[in-house]
């Protein structure tokens, strides 16, 4: 006779809603073949309610933390947790999803009947990642990762009209599975070294026992870092990113990139800092190395790109490096702030790409953006803000984010990393500026008026947050500061 498992509905409410939403979308589509806006409603309601529950979770987690009891925050016998960190990351994911759906709406519509599946996959992917960021168990984390990743593989290949999309899909898929295998083998080795899958247990184990022959654990850590580094496209595990970003449907890339980054880094932070914090003397230098490599390689390569999406991809590599400095600094709040800010800016930027190059745009050569300031001043202006935000110019949230992680890294004793980081961010300026130059200082190629569609709202949010959090970061900083993991 099996005892009834412990169920904590609130802990999984958002994910559950997302799953149900996905199912609903599929069923509604199959049953009634409704027009797109009906699906829009379903998705909208799903996301809004999911966000609502996430907020609810936030307060519960916050109260629990205030009360100092950890039990309410550990759910499903330790498979997942509902700590501030998880909930914050989840909210970031949901926000990115909501914006991503809006940004990609045109594309979804263009898919016709298959749009429903696309939406379902988006919701499921988010559900998976949202489980992943909350996972307190490496296997659970792996599952969440796979749920999200597999959905993304499909999304990458969705635009069947373009061969690049196939290529993106297969590359993403093969390398992704390769990385997952690495990751899960690493998990297995860590298990072999600690007899634990649970992150908190691992921390306890490593805290209490000295492992005499920890080599196997280190191998495991290495593989885990590699697997997660792939997801966040940190060098040298970044190679997929440019090709996928370029090949995948413009409408969805922003979403794909954003959620992968958020979930991946949430996982990295949890695994490395929480679970393996006691071994940091060993992995800190490695992570620092990866961070430095990512920053430099990413910015240097972005400098020479002719295609905006590849540029953003490589800049994403650089950003992975920047966030890694936060990991080196061991600061959850700095990482979360950066993630939230960057995710939104990423979705916003790709929304622009989707508008300019079309939802399923073939290429996105930077030259297509000539004189965008003339064609559509608002679009150019918002894109400029986002680019500068990602560049980390003061008065944008990006600067606060960078400043946060750099400070932590410096305090953490990795001064050289901060030096590298600031130099890299200068190079980063160079290529972001290039785009702005093209938009403002070249003459327009054609005067076709661009209609933003739902992307309008995405940009409004992205630009708004970029500036507001750039000038009054306190609100978000304080939230991030409260979003501590168990």
């Amino acid at each position, binding site marked *: 006779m099996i005892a009834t498992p412990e169920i904590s509905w609130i802990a999984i409410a958002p994910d559950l809603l997302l799953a149900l939403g996905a199912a609903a979308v599929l069923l509604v589509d199959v049953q009634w073949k409704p027009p797109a806006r009906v699906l829009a409603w379903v998705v909208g309601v799903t996301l809004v309610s999911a966000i609502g529950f996430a907020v609810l979770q936030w307060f519960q987690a916050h109260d629990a933390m205030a009360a100092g009891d950890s039990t309410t925050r550990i759910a499903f016998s330790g498979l997942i947790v509902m700590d501030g960190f998880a909930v914050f990351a989840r909210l970031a994911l949901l926000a990115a999803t909501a914006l991503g759906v809006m940004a990609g709406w045109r594309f979804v519509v263009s898919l016709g009947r298959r749009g429903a599946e696309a939406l379902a996959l988006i919701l499921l992917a988010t559900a998976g990642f949202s489980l992943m960021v909350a996972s307190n168990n490496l296997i659970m984390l792996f599952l969440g990762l796979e749920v999200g990743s597999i959905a993304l593989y499909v999304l990458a290949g969705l635009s069947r009209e373009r061969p690049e999309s196939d290529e993106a899909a*297969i*590359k993403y898929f*093969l*390398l992704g599975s*390769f*990385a997952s295998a*690495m990751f899960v083998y690493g998990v297995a080795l860590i298990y072999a070294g600690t007899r634990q899958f649970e992150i908190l247990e691992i921390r306890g184990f490593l805290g209490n026992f000295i492992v005499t022959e*920890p*080599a196997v*654990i*280190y*191998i495991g*850590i*290495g*593989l885990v*870092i*590699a697997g997660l*580094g*792939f997801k966040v496209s940190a*060098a*040298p*595990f970044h*190679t*997929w990113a*440019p*090709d996928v970003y370029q090949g995948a449907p413009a409408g969805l890339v922003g979403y794909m990139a954003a959620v992968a980054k958020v979930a991946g880094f949430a996982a990295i932070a949890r695994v490395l800092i929480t679970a393996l914090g006691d*071994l940091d003397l*060993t*992995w800190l*230098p*490695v992570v620092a*190395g*990866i961070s430095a490599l990512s920053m430099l*390689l990413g910015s*240097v*390569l*972005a*400098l*020479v790109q002719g295609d905006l999406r590849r540029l953003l991809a490589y800049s994403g590599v650089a950003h992975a490096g920047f966030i890694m400095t936060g990991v080196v600094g061991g600061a959850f709040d700095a990482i979360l702030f950066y993630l939230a800010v960057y995710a939104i800016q990423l979705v916003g930027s790709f929304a622009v790409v989707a508008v300019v190059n079309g939802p399923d745009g073939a290429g996105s050569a930077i030259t297509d953006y000539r004189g965008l300031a003339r064609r559509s001043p608002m679009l150019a202006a918002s894109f400029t803000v986002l680019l500068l935000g990602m560049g980390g110019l003061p008065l944008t949230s990006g600067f606060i984010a960078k400043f946060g992680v750099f400070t932590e890294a410096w305090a953490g004793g990795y001064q050289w990393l901060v030096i590298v980081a600031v130099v890299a961010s200068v*190079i980063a300026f*160079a290529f972001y500026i290039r785009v702005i130059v093209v938009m403002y200082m070249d003459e327009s190629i054609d005067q076709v008026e661009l209609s933003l569609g739902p992307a309008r709202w995405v940009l409004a949010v992205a630009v708004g947050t970029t500036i507001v959090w750039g000038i009054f970061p306190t609100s978000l900083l304080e939230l991030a500061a409260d979003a501590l993991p168990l």
Partner: protein
Amino acid sequence: MTEFLWLVIALPLGGALLLHFFGRYLKGPLSGWLASAAVAASFVIGVVAALPFFQGGEHGVTVLLWEWMPAIGANLELHWDPLAALMTLVVTGVGSLIHIFAIGYMHGDDRFPRFFTYLNLFAASMLTLVLAGNYAMLFLGWELVGLCSYLLIGFWFTKPAPPAAAKKAFIVNRIGDFGFMIGLMLVFTAFGTLSYAGVFERAGQQLTSGTATAIGLLILVGAAGKSAQIPLYVWLPDAMEGPTPVSALIHAATMVTAGVYVIARSAAIYELTPLASTVVATVGALTALWAASIAIAQRDIKRVLAYSTISQLGYMFLAVGATAYVAGIFHLMTHAFFKALLFLGAGSVIHAMGDEQDMHKMGGLRRKMPITAATMGVATLAIAGLPPLAGFWSKDEILASSFARGGWFSFLWIIGLITALLTAFYMSRQWVLVFLGEPRWEESAHPHESPRVMTIPLIVLAILSVVGGLVNTPFRTSLEHFLEPSFELVSLQHPDEGWLMFALLAGLSVLAGLVGVGVGLLTYRRPLERWRGFEETFEPLWGIWEEAYRVDDMYGRVLVAPGKRTAEVAAFDVDARLIDGSVNGIGRLVRSLGQWARPLQTGFVRNYGVLFLGGTLIVVIWLVAGGA
């Protein structure tokens, strides 16, 4: 009375401003009269303010106008003592005469008011210089004088030569100022202030002779620039490009005397450094001879005068260098009279000849313009140093003093004597060439006597040139008594007492003068070809003199051209290529790094796999190695 002293400067300055903004609304010569009135008024004020000094024994006062740069003890303050008073009177007195003369001379020039603006400003600047109560303010006037000379020399800016000459004048002066400024810095470092009161009273106890020498020499550099001494005299001849009244103003009353004045003013410092003084004297003597030799061979009526000015200034330097400050100032004053007279006369001639300046194209003008001829004749005799004219007394005192100083100075005395001879020669040569002999001018020229507004100043100056010297004869040294208070800190050099000595020396210099004049007369009375032949006998020396030893070319080749070349190298090779190139090079380097790293992204998924696995292995090995 001193509370109105600021008016001395304010009046010409106000005049300048007035004319600058409203000059164009004033009819005809009115603006000229205004300007002259302003200077004349400050002359009157000067006289009144100077009254106390005539009783003698009255010390200087310092009047603070307002704070300027207190951190370096430099305020706008007026220092009113006999020396300043004398200079003021010379500047305003001669100045006002020149103003009046200019009314006639510049008649009909379309920028007539603007010209007087500058003249007034010039006077104001010079007065600032002489009335300054500290070196900083002196430097203020010093530089403003330079500015005005720039503006006035380049007055006819549409011609190519004047602007170039103006620029040359200012820049050469700047080179002098460079030394002067460093001198001031030393002064400041030594005393913590630049004010006369602060410096002179403490010079004795606070200045090592070394510093004193340095300061003295540096001030000399500045003075040499302003007063056109070797090696910085080259700007002065070119300054002839300006309208003649300007030349008169620059040469006689104002600018060039500044150098002499500042050395006299700094007597307290030179007191401590015989070396510097000797250098000053030597420079003066050499310049005197050098310039005189050039003046001999000039054809341009104004260039003769220019080089004669340089030569005469050399005398003054010789005097102040010999610490015969009174003698120097005395000669400054008399020279102001007759040199102004000479220039105005020359101006009147040029005016009459329709801007003809080549003396070979003149001659026999005395019938056409008797007054000019007469007055210039007086001046010529005066500068030639024939008693009892002004030049005789001052020059003689200088020579006597330097002789009395003995040693090296007696050598300088000989130079001075030779110079005196040359001076007499070239001056008489000039006068003869212009006024005597056969008319050699073209038909186009219709020489005529200048209007009264021009001749009256000539006459006044002529009178001054005659009697001016009597203020300080070996028999009545009233000027010396007058200046006493300004030099009480220093021991003045005096000519030897005693009749015999005086007679001997005076006799010698008079003899030199007479010989010079005589040769000049006899040579140039004769028809053209004859004295041409005379000049040719001196070839090639004469040619070299005529080309002023080709110093300008030399400077051009040795300084200007290489300098320009350096600048070009710096600008187009070093800056554009090297520095900017390396800056852009860094940028290119980063880009090329990117280009170099790009092939990593081959597009083949299996290559990516290799990269991935390789990265993983590195990470793993690093971890294991690091952990072990």
